[in-house]
């Protein structure tokens, strides 16, 4: 039988296909160069650069207040946490004493941002595996959070609410009430996510055992956030290096050891419950006080290197600032979670089908402007 195939004129060969830069599953302008044998993935090569805006270079030109605004445009789904990271770096360098009120508000909005980001992820992840209805359920709940943000700071996505030294202005009088309303609403809606998708047999078949990442690989690829925690790598920055008001709250780190797409999915669902619990612990006793401390109009950082890491919805975001003592930084580098998480795509997708690649990519939760700064 084998000899007849070998002797025949049929020749089978691997072929190459361009997935992206415009493709429904890459959620942005990511280009994947796939080498495929029939339906089986042989190689995945991510090609970046389609949305590169040289944010890090632009930072060298800007003052420290201005840098904050650029970070919105990196991981736009956790813009508040990105802003917070830069502000924390600057504040630590200046050794400013930040009022408790600011810390608590930053943490609450940070966790709301995380929930908003995860609900959006849940919606589009469902779409990637073919369940179109999830998208609208996810967006329904995200919309309520965006409304809360809009009322407080005027923006829904790119917030710019943080400034070095505090917050731009105080929260809206309705903020506490509406946040509580949202938590009460979302507690009834999050179980719906499970009934619609998590328990579905087809969904579990698509997710379980797909895109398996071992703990060792997760560490060596620098995976962080839900991707790392889905592989059993305990890496929550909020736990190990608490910032803002996170040292005042108790929460569990969502951790799964399977390392497949389903584990990453469960970690994110679990994180939404934990975020709600964090908000509930803080929302009733936001301390009174100022929302900013006075800084110079022109902030000059002392000479030296400064680093701060925070946990965004996608993982560990590190901000490195090298200052020479002037009003502009000498060098800025962002360690973005998406970049490391994308780098392991080839590792987990090879050997699977095209559908598996899409499912694994969906649970990596990539935001392309975060990778391609």
């Amino acid at each position, binding site marked *: 039988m084998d000899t007849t195939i070998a002797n025949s004129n049929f020749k089978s060969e691997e072929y190459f296909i361009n997935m992206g830069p415009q493709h429904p599953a890459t959620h942005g302008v990511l280009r994947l160069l796939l080498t495929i044998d029939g339906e089986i993935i042989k190689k995945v090569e991510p090609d970046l650069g389609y949305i590169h805006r040289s944010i890090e270079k632009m930072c060298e030109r800007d003052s420290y207040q201005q840098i904050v605004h650029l970070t919105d445009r990196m991981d736009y789904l956790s813009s508040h946490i990105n802003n917070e990271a830069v502000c924390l770096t600057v504040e630590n360098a200046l050794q400013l004493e930040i009022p408790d009120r600011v810390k608590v508000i930053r943490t609450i909005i940070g966790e709301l941002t995380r929930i908003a980001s995860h609900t959006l992820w849940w919606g589009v992840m469902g779409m990637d595996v073919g369940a*179109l*209805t999830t998208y609208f359920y996810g967006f329904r709940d995200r919309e309520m959070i965006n409304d809360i943000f809009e009322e407080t700071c005027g923006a829904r996505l790119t917030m710019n609410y943080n400034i070095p030294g505090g917050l731009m202005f105080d929260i809206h009088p309705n903020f506490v009430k509406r946040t509580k309303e949202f938590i009460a609403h979302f507690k009834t809606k999050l179980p719906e996510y499970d009934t619609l998708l998590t328990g579905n047999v087809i969904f579990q078949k698509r997710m379980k055992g797909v895109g398996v990442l071992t703990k060792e690989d997760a560490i060596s690829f620098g995976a962080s956030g839900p991707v790392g925690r889905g592989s059993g790598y305990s890496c929550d920055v909020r736990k190990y290096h608490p910032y803002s008001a996170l040292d005042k709250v108790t929460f569990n780190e969502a951790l799964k050891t399977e390392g497949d797409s389903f584990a990453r999915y469960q970690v994110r669902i679990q994180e939404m419950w934990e975020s709600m619990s964090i908000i509930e612990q803080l929302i009733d006793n936001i301390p009174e006080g100022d929302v900013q401390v006075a800084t110079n109009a022109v902030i000059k950082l002392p000479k030296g290197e400064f680093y701060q890491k925070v946990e965004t919805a996608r993982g560990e975001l590190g901000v490195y600032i090298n200052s020479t003592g002037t009003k502009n930084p000498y060098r800025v580098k962002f360690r973005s979670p998406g970049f490391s998480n994308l780098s392991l795509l080839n590792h987990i997708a090879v050997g699977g*089908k095209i559908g598996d690649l899409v499912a694994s990519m969906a649970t990596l939760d990539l935001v392309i402007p975060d990778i391609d700064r």
Partner: protein
Amino acid sequence: MNISLNITKTITELLSGFMPEGAANIGAMVTIALIYLAIFAVAGLYLVLLERKVAAWFQLRLGPNRVGPWGLLQTMADALKLVSKELTGTVKADKFLYNLAPYFVIVSSLMALAVFPFTKEFQAFDINIGIFFLIAISSIGVIGILLGGWASNNKFALIGAMRSGVQTISYELSVGLSLLTMVLLTGTLQLSEIVEVQKNGWLIVQGHIPAIIAFMIYMIAGTAETNRAPFDMVEAESELGAGFHTEYSGMKFAYFFLAEFINMFIIAAIATTVFFGGWLSPFGITESIPWLGVFWFIGKTFLLVFLMMWFRWTFPRLRVDQLLTLEWKYLLPLNLLNIILMAVIVWLNLTIQF
């Protein structure tokens, strides 16, 4: 109220009043074909509207509501737009096959409609191999999809077309075998007779356990045959863009689109005829008014169409190897066992008759 529903006879008699018999026959055929074409093009458009409305109800939305009252003219407007659109294509496509493909798909869908008995008399084409005809005709459609995917000269379209090939060929087995199970019970392939048999109780009741199993297999395989979610491997938006019709635009795309909805109607209509008593009313409540049969037929069909839409808007998509596993390792052996079970039940006369 006496409405003559035997359209073949009525039109032939009308035409033979002023032309020779041969010409009258041909004229009647053309007229009936045009009537069916018009009815089902419009029906297809309204199925699209229904799908969009059903999707909206599932997804906390309102659905189309701007064009006409309750959005009733929305799909008409869409069709007008598609008709007026420029037909673009790829430069290196195989022009002849590329242009031929949509017609294969739409013609096979429309041809299958000819044999459905909407009432006892309202049937364009009553042949004694009705079921066989349906299975044969509906499998032509896949040729169109394969041709379209191949001739587009696009790798995404090609993957979609190849998936469609394996999927349709596999699931046709299940559709055929589950219908064959019911044929064992009726003893005839003629659709009008299959409905007549059900005067003593719908076949799903007559054949009880094996009939219910056959119905479930038929609905799964039928959904797969129409290439709809959760079996929409062929298009798989998030994997292949638009699959086999990536390179089609305007009316050629509309043919593929319309064919999908007419196919859905066909699959539901076969199920209505074979399992749920076709035009017969439940317990014979409207037996004295024969033309009401049309409404019973359409009503039952639309319930099943709604069931298929329900699948689509709640289930995720299977992977291509899981799809084949489901067919070859589960549905097919179950189907074969089910045929034996049905044979035993018919042999021992264990059917339920009222």
